[in-house]
């Protein structure tokens, strides 16, 4: 019985970031890099995966050291851990995915200050075991990747008519504004409203049920 309960809660931890507590559309965290790097699907996927990687690794490590770190020095300790993983990801991307590294540029080092990572370290990894922290990092990371990818696909499609560089409709139908910050705000606003609507519908169903 307790095994079942543990399985369900682990599944809940993993899936929380997908829709219910999606870091972008529901918690509205880390919007600056999300809006800036979602100009096309490739950049968005790269940024999403880099952030997810850092999130998973930092959640695991912070959960491992949570009992060793005194409360008053936890923030500098967590920041140091997160900054180290970001540096590692930055070095790996420079060595193995040069073009993506050049495209994402400034926003890779800035993953350090992405509130999603610090937020999950503080709210979850510092209070839970390694497995659950891993699942939380993975779930939130996938939720973030999915959200930024959705934005990237939409903006690329409506600005230049392609998805991952594959032509869907002629470029002349493109709306250049989608490439610019106003386009990013419009698209994210639309998706936030959609996610809110889906959450409300699910809530109402539960109440009626």
């Amino acid at each position, binding site marked *: 019985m307790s095994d079942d309960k543990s399985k369900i809660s682990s599944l809940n931890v993993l899936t929380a970031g997908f829709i219910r507590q999606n870091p972008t559309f529901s918690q509205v965290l880390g919007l600056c890099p999300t809006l*800036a*790097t979602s*100009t096309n699907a490739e*950049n968005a996927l790269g940024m999403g995966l880099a952030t997810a990687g850092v999130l998973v690794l930092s959640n695991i490590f912070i959960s491992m*050291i949570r009992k*060793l*770190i*005194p409360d*008053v*020095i936890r923030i*500098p*300790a967590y920041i*140091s*851990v997160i900054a*180290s993983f970001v*540096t*590692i990801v930055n*070095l*790996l991307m*420079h*060595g*193995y995915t*040069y073009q993506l*590294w*050049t*495209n*994402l*540029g*400034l*926003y890779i080092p800035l993953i350090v200050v992405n509130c999603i990572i610090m937020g999950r370290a503080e709210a979850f990894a510092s209070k839970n075991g390694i497995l659950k922290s891993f699942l939380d990092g993975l779930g939130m990371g996938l939720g973030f990747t999915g959200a930024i990818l959705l934005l990237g696909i939409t903006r690329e499609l409506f600005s230049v008519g392609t998805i991952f560089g594959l032509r869907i409709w002629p470029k002349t139908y493109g709306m*250049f504004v989608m*490439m*610019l*910050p106003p386009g990013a705000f419009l698209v994210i606003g639309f998706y936030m409203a959609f996610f809110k609507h889906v959450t409300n519908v699910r809530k109402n169903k539960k109440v009626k049920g």
Partner: protein
Amino acid sequence: MLKHLKMALILTMLMIVIAVALDSVYILTKKPIAKSDLNAKLSAIKSVLTDPNTGKLLIKESEIPTSLKQLDSKVWKSDSSGVLYKDDKVKGYVLSPAYKFTTKDGKNAYVLVGYGIGFGGRVITVAAFVRKDDGFYENAIRVIDYSNETPGLGAQINDLKVRKRFYSIPNSGFESGLKVNKDANLYPLKNGYLSKLNSYKSKGIVVTSDVMTGATITPRAVVSTLNAMYAFLKKEAK
């Protein structure tokens, strides 16, 4: 007191673990990073030595360097400081080494690497200049490091549609001092400006505001680099 010492010790231990981990990854990635940077440079050199109008190489295919050794054999000028020329006024720098090739028709082609200061730091550009009877003629450019520029804005600098605006600039343009169109009071652009791009280039005006909306600092960094490169060539390639 003991409590503070304990905290200091814990933080020190954590930093040691982090330092060891980072050092290991740095050593592991040192070679792949050097390889990636070299590949980017070699690919950029081939690209700038290609005529943008005909798509044909300016030099023989066999002369295109494909390794560090071959590239080193083409070094024309170098300086141990790492910088061959700097123009502090426009913040344009030419990096060491500079390379020299011979075109199919026997002219000298210079490939220079330089940088200007963009939004987040260095914007590194590779450019080829061909020496003609009336002076230096810029063939093409490739921006190889714009990693600190804003994605979607300044980071579009190496997109072909943007790069093209810096291609085939005659020496008359450089003599006037290259400027982006916003700095040359050519903004907003008038109807029919697209047919006048070459005429603007000969006056030293590089039109970028239509292909890089919202980004002026990054193209300005490239323009500063090209101005420094031209000044360096005038001084050194007599």
